[in-house]
């Protein structure tokens, strides 16, 4: 896929990373288009999370570069939603305080913090009390608070690390609907790591399928299904065909 520099939000060149002498990435390249939702899917241990953790600046890389419009990750605003909301939210702060936290760290004035909090609550149609503590909320509500917290800083790039894997199916479906609608409204460049193929296809503009270590790209699949994609889209012929193709690629990548 060739992109002009203006369209590119994330550029990864020659990325290298090894764990205990075992290479995970040795010369990995990737360009992500601005406003795209990129899903990364691959076998266990292929380094999906490693990739976004390096991109988010949480994990040092051994070599290569990851640039955001020419800038390092420390120079841009990022949001990150962890898989385990129970361990990512601050249980000693109320839900609203959790969402205010990154805005305060940014130094936003109080009035703007409140305005953004209100805006997010409306956008996500929050009907529960944000003045509760996280442990008083359901799992889906807690993960929604995590997502709102990540979006509060109006990130240039959003990282989602298996955000729904700890939730039940019903909650996953409704949260997925909400999230895709908001991400498309705001046009936020997003990298989603998932081990659910359906979820990767339904949420993404582009699906990157990775091989076993050392990790390379097995397939780079544009997902041009129409938005919004509700649960019914899971039965559409376009979706079914894409899923069949991806499943085939995946089985070859795992067998290889």
């Amino acid at each position: 896929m060739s992109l002009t520099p203006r369209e590119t939000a994330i550029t990864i060149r020659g990325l290298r990373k090894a764990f205990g002498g075992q290479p995970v990435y040795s010369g990995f390249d990737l360009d992500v288009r601005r406003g795209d939702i990129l899903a990364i899917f691959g076998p266990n241990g292929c380094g999906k999370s490693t990739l976004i953790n390096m991109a988010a600046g949480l994990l040092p890389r051994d070599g290569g570069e990851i640039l955001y419009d020419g800038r390092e990750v420390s120079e841009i605003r990022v949001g990150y939603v962890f898989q385990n909301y129970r361990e990512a939210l601050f249980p000693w702060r109320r839900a609203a305080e959790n969402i205010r936290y990154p805005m305060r760290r940014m130094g936003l004035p109080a009035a703007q913090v409140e305005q953004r909090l209100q805006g997010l609550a409306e956008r996500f149609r929050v009907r529960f009390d944000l003045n509760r503590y996280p442990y008083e909320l359901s799992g889906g509500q807690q993960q929604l608070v995590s997502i709102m917290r990540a979006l509060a800083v109006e990130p240039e790039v959003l990282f989602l690390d298996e955000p729904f894997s700890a939730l039940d199916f019903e909650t996953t479906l409704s949260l997925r609907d909400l999230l895709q609608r908001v991400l498309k409204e705001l046009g936020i460049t997003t990298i989603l790591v998932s081990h659910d193929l359906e979820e990767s296809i339904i949420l993404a503009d582009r699906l990157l399928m990775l091989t076993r270590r050392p990790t390379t790209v097995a397939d780079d699949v544009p997902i041009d299904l129409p938005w919004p994609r509700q649960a019914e889209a899971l039965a559409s012929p376009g979706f079914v065909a894409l899923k069949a193709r991806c499943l085939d690629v995946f089985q070859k990548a795992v067998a290889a």
Partner: protein
Amino acid sequence: MRALTGPALGALGFVLLWQLAVLLRVADPILLPPPAEAFAETWRGFADGTLAHDTWRTVQRTGLAFLIASAIGVPLGVALGAQEKLYRGVEFVVDFFRSTPASALFPLFLILFGPGEGTKVAVAAFGAALVILFNAAYGVINARRTRVLAARIMGASGPRILVDVLIWEALPQILVGMRSGISLALVIVVVAEMFIGSTDGLGHRVINAQMLFESGLMYGVIFVAGALGYALNLLFILLEKRFVHWSGR
């Protein structure tokens, strides 16, 4: 109300057993007086003010030792916990002195602080500080990694993470350390009051009562000391529930 029924019945059962032992003459009445006599002598001790004074002195010494121990143990423990490599370096020394019976340190502290108040409070503070330090350090070391990363990605600097995440993560463990610390401080203070030239305090009172064969009073003072330890423990459990409402949820 119902929550109190169990403990009340237990206490009543204990007193009845005691009374039964007295009736069966299990021991010489001088060594084992009836509960009523112990109660009456304890009551008299409180009525003339001397036992209340002794209790208050023990509370004061324990409280002071605990405050000193917390003021040293909490910040030092948190700081060491945040530098895990440094903590691993001093861990052996902390563990060693934590395991050393505090009573073995009396002679040393007597040389350092003299035979007055200082020694009693200092030994108790020393013992309690190590327990608090150890717990605070482990609380910080065991902080959830995800929360630290979350704070970092939201733009929190190192000191900010310490204040906004690590201390909170460690708080349940710090309070557990404080609870063990104050119990230990009480034990050391009572022992010190017995053997290091004292003129007041529960430890002083209990050993005096024993030497004067005031066995009713001796039992009474033991129960007062027990009640004090129990109350301090209960106080900290309530504090834990109040201040670490999120713990275990």
